[in-house]
């Protein structure tokens, strides 16, 4: 498994990431964690619908997103808010989506990040089509798709991997192996030694990386993206990480996992090791930490306020979103609904 930073913050090898970049990645992870904690709290207050936390997976998401160019495509899941945000999707829209508002699914025009896929696995092939179209149009944009270990059991994984390899599309497959698909452990999901090794069968490179090591994730994702952008085709990255929280706010992990295991993973926390590294290198101080946290909290609070200030969704919009122009029968139904 490729890694660069040990859990105690010491560096395994020469770090191909500058100190300034590490500080930026750390700041992003702090902000992402603040978002995650805020959403858990909002859900408990009944202000969000079900929420799927990503705590513990910040390095996988921020590291991968940091390797992308601003105009690249991203197709992720309901647990990828950090990845989406770091790729340009505003917090306020992510929150709006979780309050149960379709307007949250509409990122700004220059952000090529699809709203999250809720069904498991169906979106991986979309990143193949997106990348394929870009290659056909002669652009050098790539598409990254993120999914969990559970999704690799779906037939969709096979079809997406195979299509990408057959047509050599510039697609990066990022599997965040977080140990569980709701309650079902990775060890039972597949008896394959790793998920990364599945890439072999499709004829594409596969790499397993410490998903709690932001520098390592950034490095392998950069390599995969460089390869794709140069016409070298798709790659599979397995980021080995751990979902510290529940599957969603509707779940109780105590029913299926040993909490000692979760505690042990807390020792491998993706933020902590970067803080230790920065501290050692003289790039961290308590007041900077405080500044980061204050800034993150302020931004998230603003985003929450903006999301909650969206006007009540209206009937016309619900009908109007189905087609570019409402069909005749739909228009009739809108009239009927409006009269009730």
């Amino acid at each position, binding site marked *: 498994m490729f890694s660069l930073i040990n859990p105690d913050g010491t560096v395994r090898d020469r770090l191909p990431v500058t100190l300034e970049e590490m500080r930026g990645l750390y700041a992003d992870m702090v902000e992402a964690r603040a978002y995650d904690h805020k959403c858990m709290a909002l859900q408990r207050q009944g202000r969000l619908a079900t929420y799927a936390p990503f705590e513990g997976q910040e390095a996988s998401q921020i590291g991968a997103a940091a390797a992308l160019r601003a105009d690249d495509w991203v197709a992720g899941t309901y647990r990828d808010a950090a990845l989406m945000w770091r790729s340009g999707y505003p917090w306020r829209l992510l929150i709006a989506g979780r309050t149960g508002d379709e307007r949250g699914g509409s990122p700004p025009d220059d952000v090529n990040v699809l709203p999250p896929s809720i069904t498991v696995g169906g979106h991986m092939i*979309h990143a193949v089509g997106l990348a394929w179209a870009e290659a056909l149009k002669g652009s050098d944009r790539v598409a990254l798709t993120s999914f969990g270990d559970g999704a690799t059991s779906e037939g969709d994984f096979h079809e997406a991997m195979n*299509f990408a390899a057959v047509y050599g599309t510039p697609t990066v497959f990022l599997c965040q192996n977080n140990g569980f698909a709701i309650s079902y452990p990775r060890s039972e999901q597949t008896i394959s030694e790793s998920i990364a090794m599945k890439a072999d069968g499709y004829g594409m490179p596969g790499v397993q990386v410490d998903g709690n090591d932001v520098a390592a994730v950034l490095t392998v994702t950069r390599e995969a993206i460089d390869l794709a952008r140069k016409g070298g085709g798709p790659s599979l990255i397995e980021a080995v990480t751990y979902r510290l929280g529940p599957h969603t706010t509707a779940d109780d992990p105590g029913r299926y996992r040993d909490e000692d295991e979760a505690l042990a993973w807390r020792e491998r926390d993706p933020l902590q090791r970067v803080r230790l590294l920065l501290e050692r290198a003289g790039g961290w101080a308590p007041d900077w930490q405080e500044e980061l946290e204050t800034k993150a909290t302020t931004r998230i609070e603003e985003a929450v306020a903006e999301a909650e200030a969206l006007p009540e969704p209206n009937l016309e919009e619900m009908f109007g979103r189905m*087609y570019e122009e409402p069909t005749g029968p739909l228009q009739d139904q809108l009239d009927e609904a409006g009269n009730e």
Partner: protein
Amino acid sequence: MSEVTLAQSLNGAMDTALGSDERVVLLGEDIGRTGGVFRITDGLLDKYGEKRVFDTPVAESGIVGAAFGMAIAGLRPVVEIQFLGFSYPAFDQIINHVARIRNRSNHRFTAPMVIRIPFGGGIGAAEHHSESTEALYAHIPGVKVVVPSTPSDARGLLLAAIEDPDPVVFLEPIRLYRAVKEDVPDLYYTTEIGRLRVEREGDDITFISWGAMIKETRAAATALEEAGWSVEVLDLRTLSPLDHVGIVTSARKTGRVVVVHEAPRTGGLGGEIAAIIQEGALYSLLAPVRRVTGWDTVFPLKRSEGHYLPNVDQIVSAAEEILEA
């Protein structure tokens, strides 16, 4: 103007689309080298090359899902699935993604794409090759479902479907691919989606059908006309959105309606059409709306097809019952 079959007309429409819009690409199993199992894309790979026409691995969900990504990124993919019975692996992509991305993203991302699927029986094919499950697709909000039954509609509707800003499931009646010939303009033209075609005007009774059953419906109308009745025949052409106005207008005029479809009766579109008629034309009706349909059985293999497919006599009998009522 050339006299062409429905199959040739579809081929010509894709040729025209590929030639006039560089965003159009074709994807499907065996559509390139062999021109597709029904040869509908014959010659297009040679003419437009391997960056426009793609033979794909055997994976219907993958084909539709990849085309969906292409559509979001600005291309206009036209997908071929070999048979309606093979489309179900792609059903998840269609109902969960293709039909919903406009809604999910509040118009920010859209999937202007066409999913062409040959459908219907009567050709003595193997299991799964004769399905008429169009109601499954017509039930999905967010897609349109189109069924041509004539060569000129085939061209106009396919070009309209390719132009459409929303996804279209385009069902092609296998039995009619080479059974009908018609003069079709070589021009670029579109036929409006969502409007039925009055195939024949009449006053005593309305026949409503689509796809391959138009042939039997037409023959039944001719038989009744020989017996002195005046029959109106509607070819729906679009199953979603249904042309409520066209259906109700005709029902009000004749007061008697027979709906003919090959699909199983229960949950088939005949029930929906009957409901539209009773909501919009009940007081003009002179008799109950009749359905002549396939049975609620699996579409049978070759030797039993005759037991399943609605025939001219059944349509005539159903019509006579309500004409005499």
